[in-house]
Every structure is written in C-alpha cells, then in structure tokens.
C-alpha cells in the first residue's frame, strides 16, 4: 500500500505530466516492436538511425532533467534496443540486395 501511495504522489507519478509524457513515448518502441514482424523493406534507414541517436541522447536527458525521470529513461532504453535491432535488420537486407546486384552483374 505504501509503495502505491508513494508512486501515486511521486513527482513523476500519474498526477503529473512527467508520467504521461513518457507513457506516450512508449508508443515509439511498441511501434518498432510491431514493425519487427514486417519484412525489412518496410524499415526506414533514415528514421531508424535517427531513433538510435535520439534515444541514446534522451537516456541521458531523462537522468539529468529535474525531476529525474527513470520512467522516461527505461522507455528510451527499450527504444534504443529495438531500434538497434531494426537497424541491424535493415543493414543486413541492404547488404543482401547489394550482393544480389553484384551477382546479376556477373
């Protein structure tokens, strides 16, 4: 009960925008997780690369902003993970098409 109460009254708790901002931010890693089931042609190299940089930076931001926002930090850690995975799928697919082009040329 005490844990619930302290969460409810926390400076980054559900009565504050510091909770709902990161809550909506979860849509980014969730969207990327949905996209892991799609073929790699649907991945945008631009967007995925940018997301990796963005979540990297924002993990640090979440740590230093006042009040410190661990919720946001965890959200960005998850996004970083899934975006890096998507990036690896995209790179692998790119290399695959390059190899096919070389074979076709020969």
């Amino acid at each position, binding site marked *: 009960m005490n844990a619930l109460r302290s969460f409810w009254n926390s400076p980054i708790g559900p009565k504050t*925008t510091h909770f709902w901002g990161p809550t909506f931010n979860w849509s980014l890693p969730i969207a990327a997780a949905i996209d892991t089931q799609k073929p790699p042609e649907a991945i945008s190299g*631009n967007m995925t690369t940018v997301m990796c940089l963005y979540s990297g930076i924002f993990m640090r931001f979440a740590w230093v902003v006042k009040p410190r926002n661990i919720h946001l930090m965890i959200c960005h850690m998850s996004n970083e993970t899934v975006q890096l995975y998507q990036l690896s799928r995209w790179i692998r697919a790119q290399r695959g098409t390059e190899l096919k082009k070389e074979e076709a040329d020969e």
Partner: protein
Amino acid sequence: MAASKLQAFLNHPAGPKTIHFWAPTFKWGISIANIADFAKPPEKLSYPQQIAVTATGLIWSRYSTVITPVSFVFQKQKNWNLFSVNVAMAGTGIYQLSRKLRQDYFPEKEETVAKE
C-alpha cells in the same frame, strides 16, 4: 553587445553546454528523417511508426512547456527549442499519415480502373 548575448546563450541553463540543448537538437533528426521520407512511396511507410511519431510529438509539445531545465529557480525559462521540435515532429507525422491513408483508402482513380 553581441559578445555578451552570445555569452548569455552559451551559459543559458538550456544552452549548448547542457544536454537540455543537445537532446532537442538530436530530436530534430526525427522530423528531418521524416521529411527525407516524404519522397518514399506510401507503401513503404509504417502506420505504427508514424502514429507513434505524431502522438509523441503532440504530447511532448505540451510536456515541453512544463518541464524546467535545471531547477525551480528557472521556472519561467521554458524550453522553446524542445517545444518547436515536438511541434515539427507532430506535423511531419501527420503529413506522412495523410499520405499513407490517402493511398490506402482514397486511391487514385487510375488504380481502381486497373484493378477491375
């Protein structure tokens, strides 16, 4: 005059010596990547991703007007850089969604003729 303004900017609590500057600066990359993807055919766009980008941009536009960069002392100095980047994110997301929705639900007449 100019030197002191430059110094004021450099030393601002949300200035380039802080993460509060670089975080939104990198966030511009999302809108720029989305703008680069305006050239992609809508089939290659992802509904989940664009919905997430739009929703996040809208919510964070609000969030960025209430968070303070350093402490309660600077409460009046809002982070307009963060605000504008989120507005841009929401804008590019909405545009990308409209392109994809238009193609999926309101296809060009030539396509419907070809299907028949």
